[in-house]
């Protein structure tokens, strides 16, 4: 948010303070860099690698947006945010977009004056316990101590779940995933609860991953997705359609490798519009016509991003499940690009 403040004193004291909001899209273009709110470190979703480059499922979406707006997927600055600081960072204009395993809820959408523009991962809250605890269901956790990240929806779901099942627990509130892991591994809590994907990611980094199991119960719906400030619809559209472009790319078989070839040879009208070969879809939301082609060229389609960061075969080893395309029985569905 750009803010200009005029201070004027006329005949004693008269003061005018004016805050003007320019569009986030213009700000990003003027800056030449996208500022993306990311996780403080969740393997597979958003974390710096050994050489300090941010990698992950959420990170790739940020890069796709940067590629669409600026033509270069590397022009992103990542600002790590915790569960507590993330929404304030977005509201105050510290970040342009928040892609950080954030659950879309009614009160966040309305009261917090945010807009969730899409769901890039359909998730649910689960529990992880050590195998030798001998627990096979979350309902057996009566009296357990549970590590929980503060400032999250999971904190509230946890309270509801235990109340509904008439069992008790002791919460240990932690700030982020790494602290939760430390407490959990040190035995300060019997169970660690967060989004199931987060648990899988967390388990993947544990030295003794095989000794931990994720309990079968999924106690909530956690649609995770990119968030923008309420009131800047144009920027919301940019983020939303960049994401959908990645989905459509998977649907149409456009990959990072063949995007140029598809642009040249495809006869599918939707593909041509998406890749900017025909029509003027990009300029309609203030982007280049090749914006979405750039996004796909930078990070690949949704399926590629999923497979590379968190899919089967990676350490996190998550199945597509609900996140398969709608054509394959999942929930990922993009509106038509026309």
């Amino acid at each position, binding site marked *: 948010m750009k*803010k200009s403040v005029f201070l004027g004193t006329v005949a004693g004291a008269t003061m005018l303070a004016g805050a003007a909001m320019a569009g986030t899209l213009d700000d990003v273009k003027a800056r030449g860099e996208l500022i993306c709110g990311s996780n403080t470190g969740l393997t597979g979703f958003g974390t710096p690698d050994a050489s300090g480059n941010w990698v992950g499922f959420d990170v790739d979406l940020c890069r796709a947006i940067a590629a669409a707006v600026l033509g270069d997927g590397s022009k992103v600055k990542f600002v790590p945010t915790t569960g507590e600081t993330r929404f304030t960072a977005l509201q105050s204009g510290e970040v342009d977009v928040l892609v950080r395993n954030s659950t879309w809820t009614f009160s966040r959408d309305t009261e917090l*004056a945010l807009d969730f523009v899409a769901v890039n991962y359909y998730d649910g809250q689960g529990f992880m316990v050590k195998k030798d605890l001998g627990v096979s269901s979350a309902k057996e*956790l009566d*009296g357990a101590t549970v590590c929980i990240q503060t*400032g999250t929806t999971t904190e509230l779901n946890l309270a509801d779940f235990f*109340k509904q099942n008439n069992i008790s627990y002791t919460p*240990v509130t932690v700030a982020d995933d790494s602290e939760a892991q430390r407490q959990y591994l040190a035995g300060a809590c*019997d169970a660690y609860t967060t989004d199931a994907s987060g648990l899988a990611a967390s388990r993947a980094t544990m030295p003794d991953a095989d000794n931990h199991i994720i309990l079968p119960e999924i106690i909530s719906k956690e649609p995770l997705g990119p968030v923008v400030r309420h009131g800047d619809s144009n920027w919301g559209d940019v983020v939303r359609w960049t994401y959908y472009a990645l989905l459509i790319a998977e649907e149409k078989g456009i990959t990072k490798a063949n995007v140029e070839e598809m642009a040249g040879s495809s006869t599918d009208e939707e593909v041509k519009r998406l890749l900017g070969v025909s029509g003027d879809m990009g300029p309609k939301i203030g982007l280049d016509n090749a914006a979405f082609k750039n996004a796909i060229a930078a990070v690949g389609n949704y399926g590629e991003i999923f497979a590379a960061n968190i899919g089967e075969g990676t350490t996190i080893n998550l199945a597509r499940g609900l996140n398969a395309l709608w054509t394959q029985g999942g929930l990922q569905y993009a509106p038509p690009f026309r």
Partner: protein
Amino acid sequence: MAMVTDAPKESFRLSMLIYDSRYRAVTIQVIVLLLVGLFFAWLLNNTAQNLAARGKEFNFGFLWARAGYDINQQLIPYTNDSTHFRALLVGLLNTLVVAILGCILATFLGVVIGVLRLSKNWLVGRLMTVYVEVFRNVPLLLWILLSYVIFSETMPEPKAFRLTDDMIAAGEEPAASKILFGTVAITNRGTSIPAPLFDRSLGSVDLGFVSINLTALATILVLIGSIWANRRLLASARATQEATGIRPVVWWKSLLILFGPFIALMIALGLHFELPELKGFNFQGGIQVAHSFTALLIALVLYTAAFIAEIVRAGILAISRGQSEAAFALGLRPGRTMNLIILPQALRVIIPPLISQYLNLTKNTSLGIAVSYLDLRGTLGGITLNQTGRELECMLLMMLIYLTISLIISALMNLYNQTVQLKAR
């Protein structure tokens, strides 16, 4: 003959506001006041505009909404169905309990260390110097984290206390056992201590949002009564001593008055203790004290005691040597000299800086967030703020509460200061 005439009346000109020393001071003050007023007006205006720009409104209605989260240490009944205001109260009490216990313990420890630092015993004096320098020169946050990590990493997990049938058959003992004759269990999560229970409890009176426990109230009243009676006894003993020169033997009466009524009350109420037992994942029964509380309290006490020790030492050194020499000349032993002559005079020097230390300790309790201690900062300024998104309201309210607590402590200590101050007669 000289005529005395009135000085010509000077008419007031605007320039006199700056050049005339009679008006200049006022002019400057008015300008500064205006600027300060403008600054705050700008601040308020800016806040209001930014709130409006984000579509947020400023109200405290959220305090009456359901909180929805759980708190692991509650001094008053609280469930996730309670309101955010109730959560605020729980947090406030958690803050106060650490602050009050911390101030009391830090004072005791600080006075002992301050006095010992002046000890003629070389080793004791140096050890105390090392203590003071180490604790006050390392940030408090590190001490809190350190004491928490020591507890959580070195103590056994609750399951280490478990004795299974297989182990009994094999004649094995559990890896860990309770200490103090099997009454206290220290695990890596917390300390479980026996809880006092009463067969014939007096119940409690519900006063709307707080309920007063009559058993606790009766206990406190009996204790206060005993202490008052004991003071009367000692005062009469002193009167006898001053009148006749012979001090009557009162120690057994004193003990009887101090502890007799209390023990009688406890027997009448049917006091017994509920011991913590390992059930399921954790110890149940008794009182569970989380390590976040213990670690925060220990770190605060050790850290603040180092500062208080220095204040006490300074206070003692401020009393002239002649005072102790005179006391020794009268034949008073060093301990009595300290208690009767030096410390009462040193208090005048000690109390004012001690107030600041109490205020520091109270405010430093907010660092408990580092070990997930859910005090006021953790509930109102942490989870409530996050779940409701009311940053401005929560922060303002929290500042106001801390300010109020500090002002109350300050006022109480100033009252006490007046009683020990040098009386000007």
